[in-house]
């Protein structure tokens, strides 16, 4: 029953989208953080999706192949009283773009919903198939 592959495909997409949502949550949470545990300001993380065969060439799922850090420079704010300020009184904040992250989050949640819907439909169809002849 090849319809079972739909679960694997949609499941891999759910997994990938939730990883993306996780990355977005980390970025948003650290939008205003100054220095991480290594003393460096937080860098925005983005996941990279790659198509990956689930079982056979007909069914192509999706995997998170890489997590990349944004190379953009951090935001500089003037705050001489901050202990993390440099000699000129500027503090380097994280390079998270909040607007970008919000749109990313909406996109990820829509994609997640779509794939959950696909799973639901496949489940209904399989149930119908199992009831053949009854």
């Amino acid at each position, binding site marked *: *029953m*090849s319809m079972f592959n739909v679960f694997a*495909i*949609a499941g891999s997409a759910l997994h990938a989208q939730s990883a993306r949502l996780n990355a977005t949550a980390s970025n948003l949470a650290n939008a205003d953080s100054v220095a991480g545990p290594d003393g460096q300001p937080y860098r925005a993380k983005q996941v990279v999706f790659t198509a990956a065969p689930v079982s056979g060439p007909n*069914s192509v799922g999706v995997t998170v192949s890489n997590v990349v850090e944004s190379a953009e420079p951090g935001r500089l704010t003037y705050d001489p009283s901050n202990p993390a300020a440099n000699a000129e009184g500027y503090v380097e904040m994280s390079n998270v773009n909040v607007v970008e992250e919000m749109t990313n989050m909406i996109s990820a949640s829509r994609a997640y919903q*779509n794939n959950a819907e696909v799973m639901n439909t*496949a489940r209904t169809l399989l149930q119908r198939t199992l*009831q053949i002849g009854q």
Partner: protein
Amino acid sequence: MKTQLDSALQFHQSALNLQAQRQQMLASNIANADTPNYKARDIDFRSALKGALSERMGPLALASTSSRHLDVAEQMQFGAYVGYRREFQSSVDGNTVNMDVERAAFAENSVHYEASVTFINGLLRSMQTAITGQ
């Protein structure tokens, strides 16, 4: 030996199998909606069903005279009838999945699948009536 029941069911069996394969392919497209450079694929249902009914669905047997010839056994099912979707709007990341098209095709294919299941059920019920004579 082919019984009457076999030949009556053969058409619906091929259709159901093909619809399950197509469902899988559409699920792959939906799953990879955010994967860069993924190209949306679909099965040409009409010609694939025609091919399946004339039992031409498997890959042709090729004589390989060199070890460097490609292996035909690894080809996908209905591979000859799979095509890439035409793009309406190009996207920057090279992805050709149009979610509206995919969702519509997925819903349409689910209804077709359910219709095939209903036909099979009706066929079996009338056969049962003929067997029991009631």
